[in-house]
């Protein structure tokens, strides 16, 4: 599964994307975030303020969205364009 990071989250993590393999018990987007935050403190720093959104296939999804079979997941802070 490919993860994409943008803006402040990309800067905190020090990478714009990475490919990970998830354990079978990780089903939802919320599970993914919890999993990453347990994996390394750097994810805690990136996600702990809860100011982030998740997009699967370029569509916003909620935390209970099932990502088990998703190929590409983007995690980014609130948008500030326009």
């Amino acid at each position, binding site marked *: 599964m490919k993860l*994409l990071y*943008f*803006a*402040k989250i*990309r800067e905190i993590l020090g990478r714009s994307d990475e490919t990970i393999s998830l354990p079978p018990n990780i089903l939802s987007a919320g599970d993914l975030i919890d999993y990453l935050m347990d994996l390394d403190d750097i994810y805690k720093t990136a996600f702990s303020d809860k100011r982030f959104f998740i*997009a699967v296939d*370029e*569509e*916003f999804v909620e935390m209970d969205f099932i990502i088990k079979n998703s190929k590409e997941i*983007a995690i*980014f*802070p*609130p*948008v*500030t*364009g*326009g």
Partner: protein
Amino acid sequence: MIKIRIQSEAFNIENEIKEISRSKLNGATVSFIGSVRDLKSENLKNLEIEHFPKMAEKVLEKTAQYAFKNWNLSQCIIIHRYGKLKIADPIVLIITSSPHRKEAFKANEYIIDFLKTNAPFWKKENTEKRSYWVNQKN
């Protein structure tokens, strides 16, 4: 007709409006330009706009399509820039054209409001003192 562009280059509003075919112009044309401000009065050196290309394209396209149908537009153009910009540089251009001005205004305001909270672009301000990511408002 709907036209979406995401580019680092500047745009020219006169050229964009001129390009609209004469028959499609339809009476009322509303444009919105958002440009770089020195928000904190800290001598902004530049503004960097980062974006998620594939998703940004999708969101702009869908937003334009919704506005086009909902307010009966004859024309809808959205151009959003990315990269390094200076004070007063234009960031975004939205043009909505319709037979009725109320609809052109409503559609235009809807599009910019929606983009501000849904299009994956992020602004980073580099001032003389520091660099920081702009926080989302309203």
